[in-house]
């Protein structure tokens, strides 16, 4: 399977070969074999010794083709490339029409302190639609594309979480 490191174009191939003995696992990454001593294993929390170095890995978020994880507290994003992932991605982009690319989500959690756009009005990419307040800071949620505001999903005073839908722009 191929993995791409977020923020770079670096692609590596990795596969799990087999269990060597109790707690030892053999993997092959970029044609080099590594023995991993697994010390802790859970659905999103792993501890292992690889190349004589101890690592704590925590899976932060895992989606069909992307994993966000931290290694010893440093956060990274790894994209996965495989036939299946490609198919999955395609099927997602097909259904994307209905929501996906038209949906504007909030990147931060906060309370809605101001609404600057109205339904059925035209907006340009980068226009501020809604102002959120969080930790005494005011942050604008900006249109991610040109289009017409089809729906506004938030009201003044409401609380939104990260990734909540703010508006639909067509």
């Amino acid at each position, binding site marked *: 399977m191929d993995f791409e490191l977020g923020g770079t174009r670096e692609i590596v191939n990795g596969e799990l070969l087999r269990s060597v003995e109790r707690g030892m696992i053999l993997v092959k*990454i970029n044609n080099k074999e590594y023995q991993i001593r697994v010390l802790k294993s859970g659905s999103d929390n792993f501890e292992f010794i690889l190349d004589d170095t101890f690592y704590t890995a925590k899976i932060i978020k895992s989606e069909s083709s992307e994993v966000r994880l931290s290694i010893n507290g440093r956060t990274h994003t790894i994209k996965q490339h495989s036939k299946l992932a490609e198919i999955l991605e395609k099927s997602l982009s097909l259904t994307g029409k209905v929501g996906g690319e038209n949906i504007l989500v909030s990147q931060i959690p906060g309370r809605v302190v101001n609404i600057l756009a109205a339904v059925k009005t035209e907006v340009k990419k980068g226009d501020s639609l809604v102002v959120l307040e969080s930790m005494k800071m005011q942050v604008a949620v900006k249109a991610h594309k040109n289009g017409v505001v089809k729906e506004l999903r938030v009201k003044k005073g409401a609380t939104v979480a990260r990734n909540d839908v703010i508006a639909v722009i067509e």
Partner: protein
Amino acid sequence: MVKKIQSLLVANRGEIALRVIRACGELGIKSIAIYSDEDTRSVHVKRADKAYYLGPPSPSESYLNINKIIEIATKVGADAIHPGYGFLSENENFPELCSKNGIIFIGPKKPAMEITGDKMKCKAVMKKADIPFVPGSEGIINDVEEATDIAATAGYPVLLKSAFGGGGRGIRLANDEKQLRQEFEMAAAESKAAFGKAALYVEKYLQRIRHIEYQLVRDAHGQGRHLFERECSIQRRHQKLVEMSPSPVMDKETRNRIGEIAVRAAEAVDYLNAGTAEFLRDEHGNFYFIEINSRLQVEHPVTELVTGIDLVKLQISIAQGEAIPFKQEDLSLRGCAIECRINAEDPFYDFTPSVGVVPNCTIPYGPGIRVDTYLYPGCTVSGYYDSLVAKLIAWGKDFEESRVRTKNALNEFTVEGINTTIPLFKTIMDEDNFLRGELSTDYLERFKILERMNRVAVENSKKDLIPAVSAILLRSEFIKKSHSYQKSTSFRPGLGWQSKG
């Protein structure tokens, strides 16, 4: 004159509330916390001797609710109130309301707060006391001739500022007289249109400014002391990020000379308790007074580490009417301390706030390391209050030792569930200009620190590539096994990938 405080209400939350609670513990004073609905499980509630419910999460209904706080303090018989920083700490009515209710306010009196809180009033008082200001007009100027006269004295370039402006708005730069005349016309017209009158003033434009401030303490007996300087030049949008003491540009003579000015400034307003005199230092080594902050500051620990003085306990003893127990010449500055303000913000995404539950965190320890924080595994970082979640302060015998200790401690520091500014500080601690003490308030932009941070992050990711891929492979295997063993209770299906070999 001395009234021993038996119980003290902390009118704040977060790390500073915990800081004050600890000081109370050391002094044998009963600490009283107050909390909003958002803070029922906050560490200040856990650690205080008593904790009283204040109100809904919104600051105006809780930590800014001055009447409710006084009501609780009166009801529970608190002898004193410590305001911390932020919230009500610089509200000039707070000390008076306290004293009306027979409560000792740990801070200055109302008159001093009124003066320090009003730029123009403060300037007038300080000028009388011969405190140096940034050269410029005394107040609002009447016409362009006055502006050019002042600019000629102060020297170009100058800034033309609107009295109604703020936060960088309404500021114009003029490099010579001709430009000043042009800008004046435009600024006056703009100001008149917006506010009905042309309230402008002229100020010398300072370049490569450093923000250097002095810790002050003054007691009820008129004794004033300074506890040396802190350099707080590394800022982002006027918010301090890194503070240190001593400043890399201060020698002993300058330290004492400016320190005396700082103490004089405190005397000029009959200041009581702990405060900070803030100065700008230009690239030629001139110091200009800006203002007095009439409260304990976020960055007070760096002063504590280099002087060995516990400022919060000193605040309490001064508020009790006790005299400062040391003379100026008793104080000495040992080693160096650096503080990083760890905010719950995403430095890779324009410092947007990051809130939520912190399922786990690792707080660094070890020689020279102090962490003031309200974080603990399972705590919540709330969006209702400010984003400072921890202060990492490292002492070393010199700048270099405190720098490497800070760097190592940052590597040990992990906070799960939220984004923090830790990666930014890791970048700064290794940056050449920082190492050379080449600081200014535009440090981040001048040396393209954020770009550097992004590059460092990519480099780190490359280093972690093999373990990261390994972790993903291990996880696939784990999930596959979980499936085949039907361990459905601990496995949430649909979350992850299937191993496809």
